[in-house]
Structures are given as structure tokens and as C-alpha cells.
């Protein structure tokens, strides 16, 4: 546990020094510029546009950051051979991997929190204020980010190529938003093979379509129990990917 927290703290500091704050600053500029344009174009729906586009921008930046950071997390250290030095110390591979992952997700979450504060401040200027629902949407976005981070880490260890891992991560992101469509196609399909394949794919890919609180914000709100199950889903899916990553990492010979 001590090793895990030490690796976590080291990773968190490393990312905060390098990239997380840069993405937040970049987002701030994009957000302020975007808000000015949108407020002029959205007419009656100014607040709605600012809310949707701001949350989408936070998620997009978090997604790009987490995929890029986690894909390079271990691969860069393997390439620079720094991993030999680290693993020559009494560090369990599982602790090392989990510490690195958690530190990365925490730094991305910090970036998201900074962006969200700027976004909420802008919304407040336009008279919009729904803090609980905003927090629920942010929680779901963080869940998606964690799931994508764990998937990217798993892909980077399985494919050992940064480009391939990133391409597959983006593919899985899109597939995750198709889960409802896949189930619909499976229902309509006459072929039992296709039906089974589609159902299997829809379950194996992360179910982002049902997790996208930000997208169905304006529709009637889901019950509060939904949020608990969604949180458990994100945790379990992330943990499953991490367990597979640890399995792969332990089998690797350096």
C-alpha cells in the first residue's frame, strides 16, 4: 500500500508539472471564446448551448488527455528502459501499475475540476445554477474517463504500439456509444450468429450510451438509484480492465 501511494504521488506530481495544467489553460481559452460566439448565436437557448458545449469540451479534453497519458504511461518507460531501474527495487508490479494509473486519472480529474470551475463560473454569469445535476454529469464524465484510461492502458500493454493502442481506444469509445444501436440491431437480426455476436460486442464494449448523463441532461432525469448503478458499473469495468492489465504486465519479461 505504501509503494502504491508513493507511485501514485510521484505520477500525480509528474503529470501536474507537465500536461494537466496546460490542457486546463487551453480549455479556458477555448471555453471563453466559444461562450462568446455561442451566446451571440444561440438566441433563446444561450444557457443550454453554453452548458452542452462546455461539458462536451471538458469531456473531449479529458478523453484526449487520458488516452494519450495512459497509452504512454508504461510504454514510454519500457522504451527508455527506466522500467528496469524501477522494477529492480522491491516494488510489486501490481502496485506500480495501479499507482501509475490512479495518479494519471487523478491528475486528469484535477484538470477536469479546474475546467468545470471555469465553466460553472461562466454559466453562473448567465444566471444558470443547478449544482447537483452538474456534479452528477461531471461524475459520469469522470467515470467514462476512468474506463477509457483503463482500456487504453490495457490496449497499450496488449498491443505494445502507441498508435495502435490509441486507434483502438478511439474505436472502443465510438463503439461504446453504439451499445444501444447494437442491441437494437441484434433484436432485428434474423441470423442467430449475428445476434449473438452483436449482443456479445455490446456487452464487451463499455456502455457509454447509457452513461452519457451530459447528453440526456435536458430529458426527464433518471432516478437517483441509476447514478449508484452507473457508478458501480464504471468502477467494476475499470477494475476489470486494470486486473487484465496487471495480468499482462506480470507476464512481461524485461
Amino acid at each position, binding site marked *: 500500500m505504501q509503494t502504491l501511494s508513493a507511485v501514485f504521488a510521484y505520477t500525480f506530481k509528474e503529470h501536474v508539472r507537465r500536461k494537466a495544467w496546460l490542457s486546463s489553460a487551453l480549455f479556458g481559452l477555448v471555453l471563453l471564446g466559444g461562450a462568446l460566439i455561442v451566446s451571440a448565436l444561440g438566441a*433563446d437557448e444561450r444557457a443550454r448551448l453554453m452548458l452542452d*458545449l462546455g461539458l462536451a469540451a471538458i*469531456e473531449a479534453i479529458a478523453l484526449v488527455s487520458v488516452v494519450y497519458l495512459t497509452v504512454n504511461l508504461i510504454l514510454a518507460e519500457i522504451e527508455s528502459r527506466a522500467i528496469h531501474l524501477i522494477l529492480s527495487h522491491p516494488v510489486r508490479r501490481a502496485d506500480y501499475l495501479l499507482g501509475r494509473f490512479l495518479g494519471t486519472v487523478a491528475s486528469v480529474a484535477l484538470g477536469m475540476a479546474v475546467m468545470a470551475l471555469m465553466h460553472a463560473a461562466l454559466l453562473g454569469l448567465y444566471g444558470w445554477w443547478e449544482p447537483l445535476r452538474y456534479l452528477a454529469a461531471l461524475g459520469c464524465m469522470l467515470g467514462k474517463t476512468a474506463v477509457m484510461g483503463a482500456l487504453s492502458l490495457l490496449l497499450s500493454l496488449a498491443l505494445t504500439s502507441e498508435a495502435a493502442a490509441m486507434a483502438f481506444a478511439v474505436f472502443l469509445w465510438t463503439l461504446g456509444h453504439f451499445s*444501444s444501436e447494437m442491441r437494437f440491431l441484434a433484436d432485428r437480426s434474423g441470423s442467430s450468429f449475428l445476434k449473438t455476436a452483436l449482443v456479445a460486442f455490446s456487452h464487451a464494449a463499455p456502455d457509454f*450510451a447509457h452513461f*452519457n448523463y451530459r447528453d440526456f441532461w435536458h*430529458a426527464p432525469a433518471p432516478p437517483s438509484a441509476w447514478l449508484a448503478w452507473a457508478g458501480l458499473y464504471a468502477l*467494476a469495468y475499470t477494475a476489470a480492465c486494470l486486473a487484465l492489465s496487471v*495480468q499482462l504486465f506480470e507476464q512481461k519479461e524485461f
Partner: protein
Amino acid sequence: MRGRWLAAAAALLALALFSGSRMRRLHEPRFPRLAELRTGPFAFQDTALAAAGFRAPAADLAWIQLLQYAAGGVPELPDRPGHPYEHLAELSLRVTRLDPSFHRAALFGAGILAWFRGIERPDEAAELLHEGMRRSPEEPLYALYLAAIAFKKQGDTDRMAALLESSFDLPQTPSTMKAILANLRQSRGEYRQALALWQRILENDRDRSEHARAKIKIAELKRLLAQQKR
């Protein structure tokens, strides 16, 4: 021991599948299928954004394009001469199919189609409202506008105007619809009522897009009322 992480992964995946099925049972997003999205010059933009999980922002962009079209047209969808607002229903449907909770788009399109002078295509407006009502039955304005269209078709403009005015202060009523209603009162020679409606528009911060027009109309109506007194 080598397989313990694999066993843990299997158990966690089973937990994820179980919690995922509970999550889906508690709430199913009411988005139309991707196959139901409107085809046309914006199909790629809509599909790409919806597939990447950005349906609400896609609907927002479609709303901006709808407003641009209503304000003078978009180059991708030119109107044939003598066919004003030919693509209005199509562009309004595009927004509501991306995000059915974007009620304002359907109400805005239906308002122009049914009550704009020189347009008056209430059947198209009714179709738009029917689809909106089917996808979002919780929105009361769809039914109200349909009833108002029915009164209009019967020629009962008094009841139509009264019905539309009953929704005047609801937050989801489009500013354009309020302006249409005020103009309707003016065209019937009811200057005092028209003036009161424009003043309400000017006082409401949500109707900022109509404030400039409201100031002009208020001055015009005050002049007309003064002339009437003389």
C-alpha cells in the same frame, strides 16, 4: 497464482455486466436511432457527433443552423423562388431527432409555419408538433399549439389567440412565437393588447433576441394608439 488477476477480471466483468443491466433497466435514454436522423447536407456532421457521444452538442449546432436558415437561409439548403421556408420543417425535425428534449426547435418551427404571415402551412406545423409530442409527451406546449392550429383552421382566431397567450410566460415558449402573437393582435387592430405583449417581451430577459424589435414595435403601437385617440 498466475491466473488470480484473470479470475479477478472475470469476476469484476460479471459485476460490470450486472450493474450495467440494472443501470439500463432504470433508465433508457429516449434518443431516436441513428438511422432516423435526417439525411441531407448535414448528415455527416450529425452522425459523426452522435456516434462520438455528443448528441446534445450536435442538436445545439443544428439549432444554430436552424436559426441561421430562419434568419435568411443557409447556402446548403437554398429555397426555390416562391417557396419561403421550404426546409424549415426538415431542419426543425433534424434538431428534435438529434435530441428530442430540444422542444424549442419544434415549437419555433411550428410557430413560423403555422402563424407567420405569408407562410401559413399549418399542416406541416401539425406534423412537426405530432412528432415532437410522440417523442416527448411530457411537453405540454405541443398539445397546446396543436389545439391552437385546430382553432385557426376553424377560423376561430379569438380562441386561438387566447390559447396561445395562456402559454406566453412559460419559459419554453420561443421568443419568436411571442412576437408572432403580438403581431397577430396588432393585425386584428388590438393595439393595446399588442402593446402589452411587446412590453412583456421587453421585460423578459430570456427574450433578449426580440428586444430590439420590441422597442421599435412599442414606439409604433404608441403612435397608432395616439392616432386612434385623435
